[in-house]
């Protein structure tokens, strides 16, 4: 197994864990956590490809990862703001109970 394969497998595993969590957990905040995990797994892929890629000096993968971190921070802020607003409105963060379109 080459080093890159190892990193890619870890990233794939982490991505699947995040996906499983996002699809199975009931709490909206934990779904967001799952999505964060998936984004992080993607970051790991980007960094790994940058490190073992043919042109590391071009910094492409690194830049992608840094921008992705910034975007993930924005996503967390907005997502959690929405969750808090939903909780204020519906008094629950349980996604199974949020099944009405009407407020």
């Amino acid at each position, binding site marked *: *197994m080459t080093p890159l394969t190892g990193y890619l497998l870890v990233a794939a595993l982490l991505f699947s*864990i995040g996906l499983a969590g996002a699809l*199975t957990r009931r709490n909206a905040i934990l779904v967001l956590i799952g999505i964060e995990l998936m984004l*992080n797994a993607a970051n790991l892929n980007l960094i790994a490809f940058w490190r073992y890629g043919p042109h*590391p000096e071009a910094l492409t993968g690194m830049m992608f990862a840094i921008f992705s971190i*910034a975007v993930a921070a924005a996503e967390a802020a*907005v997502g959690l*703001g929405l969750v*808090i607003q939903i*909780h204020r409105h519906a008094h629950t963060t349980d996604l199974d109970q949020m099944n009405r379109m009407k407020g």
Partner: protein
Amino acid sequence: MSIVFYLLAALTVAGGLAAMLLKNMVHCVLALTVAFAGLALLFLKLDAQFAGFAQILVYIGAVAILVVFAILLTRGSETPKDGVFSRSWLIGLVIAAAVFAVLGWAVLQSARVLPHETAIPVVTVKQIGAALVGRYVLPLEIVAVLLTAAMIGAVIVAMHENVGHEKEGSK
């Protein structure tokens, strides 16, 4: 593949698994920070110093704290009595397993064409900075605008509406 990599990978995956499996939400977040820390260490192992430290600063220092605040504000710090998994958990699990199977298969299939050990790239923070304000200046500006918009958006979304007919208990 060094022992360090296996340890870090195990730490990261264990953290991620715990974050998705534990019942108490605050424990989930703490497990998530373990996963984030493991990822940051993996970044350092990949000689991406800047990305690793930025990961700690942003994820552990900001995102984890933000999630904790959200949990406490939505009164989620107690363990729920009825289960923590959705009714359709089996479907989700199957989808995730299928995704992992496809990804793993693809990685293992392409293992032959993936590069082996390469020279350690020497990247200084100065180079990253130069690239950020040089070649990648447009994405940087867009990210800046995005972050500003997200900040204002988050503030507006989470702000109390100053309408008189606030429902009781909505504070």
